[in-house]
């Protein structure tokens, strides 16, 4: 059974799907330089306009339902991917009260986001995934497999992460946070921008107008280091190879790599090497994190939507912020490229050496 992405919605620092794609094609970064999170430094961040993440989740889920061929979600599985879950609210309480006492343990963990939507929309079932920055990519991986084996007809995948003080300070402690708008694949890049977003995709076993097929999925572990990628890029290559094999296509069929591209020194060097070894200069590559920042557990879902848009618009997203390309043996798209886009591969990599790649295919 094939898995089709039949509609999607998102909210990120650049706004909704339409606003984000306009910003991507115009290479207009929506990242801001913030001086409030760090005492002694500024940080480039991706900040959404919203009141609280629960309202964003509810609104986006309702929009998906309204646009779908479903009357309700009673026959739909919800899979939530998030790296922080309810921590945003709980850490605010902890810093305010300087105590755990007023924290509700049932509002802390990852499932608080899926439980909220379960209560509002009465899904058939729900589950929550948390593999750090591959969370919603792995949610999509599971959704595809559940439809493949005919366990479900409809799966709603949501990636959601709100900005937390702990996360911003944590990446700062690791020395990978940039004080400017990030510049993936540039020689002079100096790190990533932490960001927040909610992205949702309805995956179904039937094709509708404008469907994009979730064609293949692959995953691997580096087994190398908790935060640094394997310098030989074996894990990244394996996840991409497995996804392409699962899609039943050849490496040469891929038109565009939507890179993980965080703009950290280590990630971009290793991911470039992986793309070089696998594709050479045959495919266009770019990282849309130059516009959105790194939306952590939501990144897989957000970049899946960007990949679908590249196929639907027949337009390869360009690399924003690039002045001096570090690895000259890959084809980073300097400008938008108008062409028939048949297959896109999107990468997500995470702490612990957790790698996930997803292949999206045009339905023509």
């Amino acid at each position, binding site marked *: 059974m094939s898995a089709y992405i039949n509609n999607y919605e998102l909210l990120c620092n650049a706004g909704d799907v339409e606003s984000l794609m306009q910003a991507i094609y115009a290479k207009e970064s929506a990242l801001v330089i913030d001086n409030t999170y760090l*005492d002694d430094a500024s940080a480039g961040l991706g900040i959404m306009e919203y009141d609280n993440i629960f309202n964003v989740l509810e609104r986006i889920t309702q929009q998906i339902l309204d646009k779908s061929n479903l009357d309700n979600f009673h026959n739909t599985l919800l899979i939530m991917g998030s*790296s922080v*879950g309810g*921590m945003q609210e709980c*850490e605010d309480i*902890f*810093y305010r009260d*300087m*105590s*755990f*006492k007023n*924290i509700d*343990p*049932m509002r802390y*963990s*990852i*499932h*608080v986001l*899926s*439980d909220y939507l379960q209560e509002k929309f009465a899904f*058939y079932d*729900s*589950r*929550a*995934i*948390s*593999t*750090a920055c591959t969370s919603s990519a*792995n949610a999509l991986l*599971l959704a595809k*497999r*559940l439809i493949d*084996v*005919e*366990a*479900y007809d409809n799966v709603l995948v949501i990636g959601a992460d709100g900005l937390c003080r*702990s996360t911003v*300070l*944590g990446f*700062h*402690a*690791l*020395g990978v946070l940039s004080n400017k708008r990030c510049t993936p694949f540039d020689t002079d890049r100096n790190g990533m921008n932490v960001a927040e977003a909610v992205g949702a995709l309805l995956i179904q076993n039937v094709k509708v107008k404008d469907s994009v097929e979730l064609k293949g999925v692959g*995953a*691997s*572990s*580096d*087994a*190398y*280091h*908790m*935060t640094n990628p394997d310098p030989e890029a*074996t*894990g990244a290559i*394996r996840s991409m190879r497995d996804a392409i094999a699962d899609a039943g296509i050849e490496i040469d069929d891929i038109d565009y790599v939507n890179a993980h591209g965080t703009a950290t020194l280590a990630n971009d060097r290793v991911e470039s090497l992986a793309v070089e070894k696998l594709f050479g200069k045959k495919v266009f590559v770019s990282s849309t994190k130059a516009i959105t920042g790194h939306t952590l557990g939501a990144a897989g879902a957000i970049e899946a939507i960007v990949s679908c848009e590249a196929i639907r618009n027949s337009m390869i997203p360009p690399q924003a912020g690039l002045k001096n390309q570090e690895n000259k043996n890959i084809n980073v798209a300097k400008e938008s490229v108008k062409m028939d886009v048949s297959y896109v591969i999107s990468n997500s990599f*995470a*702490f*612990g*050496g*957790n790698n996930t790649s997803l292949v999206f295919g045009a339905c023509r």
Partner: protein
Amino acid sequence: MKKVALKIISAAKIYAPTKIENLDEKRLVPHMMTRRRLTRNSKVMLYLSDKCDFKDGKIVYGSCYSELDETAKISRSVLTNDILSPTAFQNSVYNTAPSYFSLINKDKDEIITISSGMKTSLDTLKTAALQALVSKERVFCVSVECINIDKIQEINRCTKYLEAGAAVVVEISDEIEDAIEIEDSKMPDMIGSLQDLICVVDMYEKGIDKILIEL
């Protein structure tokens, strides 16, 4: 919705009111620097993998609260304006324990981490069943909760056991007729997120080695 039969190959569980003693870390992780970085969840998971004789392959790991100790360390550092430990941050993600397993055992296969509240271990089993069905391989399914942090009594209303874990190695069975639904028996005072997997371990210890599970 689809149900499949899972054959249980091996099973283990462990729990303690405050701290599980003798997790055999020195034998399981001879490299001292790696051993010193391990979180409690990681140590319990490594212990359970050894008991289940699992060394390599796909892992589905579950934890509702995951690395609570590391997260609390970060929050306290922020509150007191102390320097935040990079190790605490890298160890705070939900997939920390299976990632350490992967590093130590050079396991390059897929890792999925589930955190579904009080039904975490049930969803861990469901996901392990899917992974086993798709890959036709044996899958390590493990859930761990280690919530023994300073002042946990301020918020703990759900368990008498502050450290606990359960695990099974499973594979798909084609003989669905004699597979049995997970029994509806609860271990008193055990955190809800581990109940289903502990129940499966108990069933295995009673001689039931095939369970029926909805994907």
